[in-house]
Every structure is written in C-alpha cells, then in structure tokens.
C-alpha cells in the first residue's frame, strides 16, 4: 500500500512485540546483499534498460513489455493455483467504480490525495472553440471538463461491497470473492514500487465476525508460505495506511493499535524500507454498515481483504532472482509454471 511506519511484528493471536526493522539477509536464497547501494531510480533505469518497463515521461506511469507481462501472467496464475481450494467466487470489474460508491465508501475521509476521478467535456461548440483556444495558448483547458459518474478504483475490492449488498442478506457461511483490477492512486514517484496504475488481485471475505477473524489468521500463515514458495526474503508486520495530513497520524495510530492491517514486506529498494507485496486489511463492520451488507442473521457483516500487488511481486522476483526469469532457480520457475 505505501511505505507505512511499522512498529510491530504480527503474531498469530494479534499480540505484537516491538521490533526493529530487520534486514532480510540470510533468509531465503535471494541475493539480497547484491542490492548494494542501488537507489530507487537506479532500479527503474535497470528495469527500463532491460526492456521490462517502458517509461512514458510521467512518473509511475509505465508501459510493460511482453517479458514483463509474461511474468505478471505467471504470478496471476500462481495466485489462482495458490487459492484454488478456497472456492472463491470470481468477479471482475473495470478499473473504475461509480463515483457515488467511492463517495460513500469513506475513502475520501482518509485518502483525498490518492483519489482520481474521471472528467469529460460536455460543452457545446462554442465551449469547444474556447477549449481549443485555451490549449493553443497553453492555458488550463481541463477546467472546461466536468466530473463524470466514474471514479478510478484505488483498490480492486471497492466495487465488490455494493455489488454484494445489492443481492440481499449474505448466505449462512458468508462469501469469499476473488477480484482483480488495475488500480489508480495519485502518488507520482520515481520508485518503480510506487506506480500510479498497477494491478491488484484480492480475496475478500465477508460474513460473521468469527469467519473473518479466521480468514485473517489463515492469511497470516499463508502469506509466509506464499513468500517461501517464491523464495523471497520477507517479514510480516502490522502496518497502517498512508492517511492524509497530520490528522491522518491519529487515524494511522488507531488502525495500528487495533491491529487492523498487516503486510508481507519484501526488500526491493535499498532506500525507504521494504515493500508491501501483500496487504491484509480488516474492516470489522465498517463496510457492512456503509454499504448495508447484512449477514444471514441480519447483522451488519464484517469483512476483510487480502491484496496482492502483481507488479510489486514481479519486481520482488526480478530483484531477488535476477532480471532474466529464464535463469531463475529451478524451484521458483517450477512454482510459477515455467
């Protein structure tokens, strides 16, 4: 999700002991030491020179080559196999949601700085001429656009909650949804681990509080297994979201205090700490109440989601196993089906 400050390691039962961030050296076969003194933009240059990412001139907005996409597809299919036995309902949405749903989701309370909304020109011919005149003169022409009913999704799971709420009360055992989408967050950066457009695959569990808690405990364990399968050095730590402003520090402290978020962190860049490649968010009954999601018993449903950053997992693999996937360790290639 970002580069949150982590103060604690997450234990299975939610108890957490203070711990200093530790380097992952020696954990897993990844040649972490080789990372050396690389700085964020250097890794971007490396990826660009290797023909993996194609720069567009806008930080965080990159093209992907066939080789990079083959890796993304392999990771996506690996996640499909990793979660196959869960029997999740597969849903797919465009990388957008009704602006109305974003507005009532509460996202603007915490993250007004990350939101992207779609605007379009709806004027007449005279206004069109004026727009072209603005463009010609180098003035701001975008003020002549109006907001549409569409906003960009900041996380793949947002369209899931209103969609499921519209079905009526949940079945007795709740639901498990597999969702994936391109996502947008306005945080331009030269760090290849912080993209404005990226892909997120998620599992969303909605149901009784105990079921959602069990889902959380399960993923604390499975996250470790996932990183092990990919032979990536990692740590799991409680975390908080990059809430907006000074007041956001209070929200962040509250989120962390309640143990609502944990991340699977892999060192990718030398600077700024390790990168969250998996992020688990426990919403309690917030979305249940916000979107009117009811359990079979008529109570506000609890929910949680676990998200996988596909580009971040790809970058983690490229960092630790080398820029040429054909030369990766046999075990890693096997688990990725190549």
């Amino acid at each position, binding site marked *: 999700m970002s580069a949150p400050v982590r103060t604690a390691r997450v234990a299975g039962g939610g108890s957490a002991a203070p711990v200093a961030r530790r380097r992952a050296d020696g954990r897993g076969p990844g040649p972490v030491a080789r990372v050396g003194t690389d700085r964020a933009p250097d890794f971007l240059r490396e990826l660009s020179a290797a023909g993996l990412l194609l720069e567009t001139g806008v930080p965080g907005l990159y093209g992907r080559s066939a080789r990079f996409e083959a890796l993304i597809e392999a990771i996506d299919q690996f996640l499909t196999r990793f979660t196959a036995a869960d029997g999740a309902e597969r849903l797919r949405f465009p990388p957008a949601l009704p602006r109305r749903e974003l507005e009532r989701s509460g996202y603007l309370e915490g993250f007004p700085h990350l939101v992207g909304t779609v605007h379009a020109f709806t004027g007449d011919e005279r206004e069109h001429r004026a727009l072209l005149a603005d463009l010609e003169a180098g003035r701001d022409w975008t003020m002549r656009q109006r907001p549409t009913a569409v906003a960009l999704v900041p996380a793949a799971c947002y369209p899931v909650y209103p969609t499921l709420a519209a079905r009526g009360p949940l079945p007795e055992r709740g639901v498990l949804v597999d969702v994936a989408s391109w996502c947008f967050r306005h945080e331009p950066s030269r760090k290849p681990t912080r993209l404005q457009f990226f892909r997120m695959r998620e599992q969303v569990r909605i149901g009784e509080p105990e079921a959602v808690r069990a889902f959380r405990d399960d993923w604390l364990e499975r996250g470790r297994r996932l990183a092990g399968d990919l032979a990536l050095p990692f740590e799991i730590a409680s975390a908080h979201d990059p809430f907006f402003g*000074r007041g956001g520090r209070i929200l962040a402290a509250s989120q962390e205090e309640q143990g609502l978020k944990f991340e699977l962190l892999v060192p990718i860049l030398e600077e700024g700490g390790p990168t969250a490649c998996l992020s688990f968010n426990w919403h309690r009954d917030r979305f249940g109440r916000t979107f009117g999601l009811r359990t079979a018993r008529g109570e506000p449903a609890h929910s949680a989601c676990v998200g996988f950053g596909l580009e971040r997992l790809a970058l983690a693999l490229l960092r630790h196993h080398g820029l040429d996937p054909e030369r990766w360790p046999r075990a890693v290639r096997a688990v990725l089906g190549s």
Partner: protein
Amino acid sequence: MSDRLVNEIRALLAREGFLAVDVAAIGDRDDLYRAGLTSHATVDLMLALEDRFGVEFPGRLLTRRTFKSIEALATALRELLPAEVTG
C-alpha cells in the same frame, strides 16, 4: 489543572457534537472514545482545538492518548499554550 481550560474544552466538545453522550455526564478522566469519539471525529476535534486556541499539535502529540480524555487534552494544551492563557 486549570478549570478555565477544562471548561473551554467541554464547551467545544458540547458545541460540535463530537460525543454520543451529553458532555456534562463525562468526567474529566473518562474515556472519550468510549463516549463515542470516533477516529475521524478525533481529527475534527484536533482541528477545532487548534482553531480555538491558536496552536498546532506537534507530531509527537498526534496519538490516541492525547485525545483520550478531557484531562489528557488539557495537559497537552497546557504544554502548547503560553502560561497566562492556562493560568
């Protein structure tokens, strides 16, 4: 503890409707979160206190503990305010 400062905080809590209960029923040391103060309302409260007292909470005070009770808020504000205001 200055009664004046505590009364100012109480007046502000009552006026803005931060709590789920009547502020008069809340003791100075009672837990405001238990009284219905949400995380987002805490941010509103922070901004309202800053406007009212012309101060800015530094990063080290932006914790839940600072906003936990009327007494905790008064302690934090006394630290930020010149002595003649709190005296």
